[in-house]
């Protein structure tokens, strides 16, 4: 049985923890709002990029001169996994969920006899993955100093990935991140980056496009192939940027709900401790009273 003093200390420490988790929850809520705004602001670009890409891919077709980033190397022996996680912990299952998905992927690829390489974005994923896949990690990107993810950061990662591809380091590239649904639901997602799956020629969209064109023929300046070679690396950067923004929102959402839980747990704990503290205090008072009374009776 802990003494009264122990209980008092315990209550004080849990209260302090509760204050911290509460503060973290509020900070996460504020950051979440900002991250969501950023994700929303970036949406028009990626949407229009998708539309432009679909249009141009239609024009170029699957000819032999379409860029390698789109057609791939024709093999799938070496896989590059870009695993995007957070820089910090204390956000529930956020990091481990992404890593778990990546791990399952790795296991499947390895059992199929493929070679796997990993590029870690964010410290946490690196920390977890290096335990059992250390030799597979080729590099890690640190975003710790980055306050709000900018397109420049995504562009840097994209360049690195494309440079690796040009050197023939891998055949297929998959991006892992967490898609933001709501504060309580973030879905770990795997998305293939290279070869870029060409946006399928949606017939309704094509028809609408043709109606807008009014029978005129699209002109390309410089020619379509050249625009496509310029567009695809940019599209990869946009995809990574989107993934990073989704991740940022998911991280804050996950942290918010994790800290909400922690705050509630701390509250319950305080209640329990206070109850046993009061009981013990009462017991002690009763004991003292009995001692006084029995002492008086003995006289």
């Amino acid at each position, binding site marked *: 049985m802990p003494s009264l003093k122990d209980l008092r200390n315990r209550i004080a420490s849990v209260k302090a923890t509760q204050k911290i988790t509460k503060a973290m929850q509020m900070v996460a809520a504020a950051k979440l709002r900002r991250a969501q705004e950023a994700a929303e602001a970036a949406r028009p*670009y990626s949407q*229009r990029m998708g539309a*432009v890409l679909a249009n141009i891919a239609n024009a170029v077709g699957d000819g032999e001169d379409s860029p390698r980033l789109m057609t791939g190397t024709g093999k799938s022996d070496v896989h590059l996994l870009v695993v995007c996680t957070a820089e910090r912990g204390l956000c529930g299952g956020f990091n481990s969920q992404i890593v778990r998905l990546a791990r399952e992927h790795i296991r499947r690829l390895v059992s199929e006899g493929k070679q796997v390489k990993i590029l870690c974005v964010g410290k946490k994923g690196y920390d977890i993955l290096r335990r059992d896949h250390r030799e597979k990690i080729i590099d890690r990107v640190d975003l710790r100093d980055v306050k709000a993810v900018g*397109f420049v950061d995504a562009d840097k990662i994209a360049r690195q990935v494309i440079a690796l591809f040009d050197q023939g380091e891998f055949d297929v590239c998959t991006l892992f991140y967490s898609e933001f649904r709501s504060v309580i639901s973030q879905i770990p997602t795997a998305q293939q980056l290279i070869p870029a799956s060409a946006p399928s020629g949606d017939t309704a969209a094509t028809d609408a496009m043709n109606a*807008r*064109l009014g029978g005129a023929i*699209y002109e*390309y300046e410089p020619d379509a192939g050249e*625009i496509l070679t310029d567009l695809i690396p940019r599209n990869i950067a946009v995809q990574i940027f989107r993934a990073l923004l989704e991740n940022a929102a998911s991280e804050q959402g996950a942290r918010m709900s994790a800290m909400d839980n922690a705050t509630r747990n701390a509250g319950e704990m305080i209640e329990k401790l206070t109850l046993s503290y009061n009981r013990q205090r009462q017991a002690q008072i009763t004991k003292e009273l009995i001692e006084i009374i029995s002492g008086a009776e003995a006289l």
Partner: protein
Amino acid sequence: MADTFKFELVSPERLLVSAEAVAVVLPGSEGEMTVMAKHAPLMSTLRPGVITVELADGQKQSFIVFGGFADILPDGCTVLAEAGYDRAAFDGAELARRIEAARAEREQASGDDQAFKLDEYLSQLTTLQGTVPPA
């Protein structure tokens, strides 16, 4: 009153403009061009330069972009800019930083193709620096 069309300027981070415009001057990679309503469908890459928009209400707005794409349709024009800034709020520091970065990359460039591309990019940036007075 001339016909108007829908003009949109989007950067990866946000939507900069979405408005009805009368005429837009774009820095196309093959040369400057003015887009007006009922322009033939055209898709062009852009070089770093200044975009000038004449809005339907007669106002003029300028933006600095660093490369990108323009998707032009008879009833609209969408510019996907790599990075876009309002001309009024733009200071030379950002441009100088980009030139610096491009120079550093040029130093390490391997292969003639890449070097040539970077040289071109650099000259476009320095031309832009000539037209934009440093803050």
